[in-house]
């Protein structure tokens, strides 16, 4: 796979960087050009990222907002939902991805064919699939209950009419949608483990579970950690799974902070309360952003 070579060829790249820092770079009259080339993106960043961030901080700066927010039972439920969504959504998905990436390392054409099918949830747009899942879980006419009834004569429940079942449906949908993506990333990481290491480990008797514990886990640990952190922050901002699978219902019991913010701002027309809901995630977002920026800036997943 192409991506594997990217990671393996790292030492050569580092040398390139060293030699470049000694030579090359800007010559006298070229500074205006360099500046002109950076300017468009800098303008986009200032106008459409930095300005909204500042505007949002200003909108959510009144402390009285937070008193109102914390007293709202819908908000309290949303915080619990967000924590559960993060805990199960991220960890179950990443662990499955870790195991499945090992499975897809097997040789054989049918494993490759299976991988092509397996990545389908990632290739199909979110809206299409989440709408399909929403209707599939309908209590009266949904596909799931039809199957349960036809095959096992079980009357399935109305899956989305009860808080915990609806929340579980959201979490499972998220796992369904995003496990393929992280499997591919971890698969690339595994491919990048040099053959010699795996072979010599096998000669020394580290196969199966022992190979996994002593070879794969230590070598993939850093990549796995970065993926987990990234996936945490992506999931925190995830709007679509909740919005389309459960819609925040029944009776606003399955909102997460991202969807509650939009609901407060646009359904009950209190934009400041919406911003406050989102801002209340900052104690989690800021440390995550700092750690991730550090990890990603050094820009190497060391193997």
């Amino acid at each position, binding site marked *: 796979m*192409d991506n594997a070579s990217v*990671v393996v060829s790292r030492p050569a790249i580092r040398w390139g960087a060293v030699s470049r820092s000694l030579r090359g770079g800007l010559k006298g009259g070229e500074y205006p050009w360099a500046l002109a080339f950076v300017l468009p993106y800098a303008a986009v960043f200032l106008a459409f990222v930095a300005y909204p961030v500042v505007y949002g901080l200003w909108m959510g700066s009144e402390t009285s907002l937070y008193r109102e927010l914390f007293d709202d039972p819908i908000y309290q439920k949303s915080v619990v939902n967000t924590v559960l969504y993060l805990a199960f959504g991220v960890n179950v998905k990443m662990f499955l991805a870790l195991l499945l990436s090992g499975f897809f390392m097997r040789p054989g054409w049918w494993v490759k064919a*299976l991988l092509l099918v397996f990545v389908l949830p990632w290739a199909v747009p979110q809206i299409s699939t989440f709408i399909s899942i929403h209707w599939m879980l309908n209590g009266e006419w949904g596909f799931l209950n039809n199957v349960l009834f036809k095959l096992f004569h079980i009357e399935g429940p109305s899956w989305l009419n009860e808080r915990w079942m609806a929340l579980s449906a959201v979490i499972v949908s998220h796992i369904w949608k995003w496990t393929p993506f992280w499997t591919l990333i971890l698969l690339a990481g595994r491919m990048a483990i040099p053959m010699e290491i795996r072979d010599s480990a096998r000669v020394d008797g580290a196969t199966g579970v022992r190979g996994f514990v002593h070879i794969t886990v230590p070598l993939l640990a850093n990549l796995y950690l970065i993926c987990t952190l990234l996936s945490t922050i992506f999931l925190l901002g995830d709007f679509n799974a909740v919005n389309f699978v459960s819609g925040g219902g029944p009776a606003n019991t399955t909102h997460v902070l991202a969807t509650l913010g939009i609901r407060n701002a646009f359904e009950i027309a209190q934009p400041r309360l919406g911003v406050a809901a989102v801002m209340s995630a900052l104690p989690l977002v800021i440390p995550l952003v700092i750690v991730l920026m550090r990890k990603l800036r050094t820009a190497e997943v060391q193997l």
Partner: protein
Amino acid sequence: MSTIVADARLSSRAVARAHSSVRLRRYLSHAGTVVLALALVVWTLVPIYNMVLISLEPEGDVFTDHIWPRVVSVESFWGVLTQGHWYLEHFWHQFANSLYIGLMVTFFALLFGSLTSFSIGRMRIRHGWLVSNAALLTYVIPASFLAIPFYRIMQNYGLANNPWSVIAALVAFATPYAIFVFQEYGRSIPIEVDESARIDGASPPQIYLKIYLPLMAPALVAVGTYALLLAWNEYLYQFLLLSSKESMTVPVALAQFLSSDQSPWNYMMATAIIYAAPPVAIYYAFRRRMTAGLTVGGVKG
């Protein structure tokens, strides 16, 4: 003598038993693999099968309890393509809106991303790390968290229902990824190439156009597909900023079906499939490139 023979026979039996246990274990692990593979296929395909099943049903048949298509009908697909339902009056217009936004986002993300990475990575502009950090910060801030202030700002500028408000937001979120991938990929191109061009008297724009861009072609393709799919699949900003039937994009129109549980589900699923077809085709066509790019940008920054 006889004991030795007995020993030999014993050991050969032990060997045979060991063989059969190895064979048994291999057989079991084979069976396990097959079961796992089947489970994976079912797990992966159920929501997609559901989508296809309903889209193939004639209108009114949706509220039944079968799990195989009874009568295969392409009525709903035909209905979408000919805009034959009042939910779908503007389907092709909305399709064009989605395409327009996708192409514009792709173009600007590629343009701004390549210019920035050229300036930082090749020309090594002073304080380039500031721009890299801004990009990195954008990459790790959840876009949905900025939706409310962004909407307010666009309202203030009078850009509601204007596709350029969505294009601006999506370019801002897609360009950081472009910058990472270009920087990373650019490291594999020796700086001597630029230097010899410079000695020959080429100006920075000439180096950018005639040397940098052609050499970056694979990365441009990877980032281009990423940006196109990002724009095509994005929902929240398009939903908030484009509310009129004329300015709406396909995902927003699709979500409108959900406003009532009595909506024509077969038309909705047919729309969902038609909407999903281009990205799936693009994904499978550019699969190799995309995963390569994702590893670089998605994990390593």
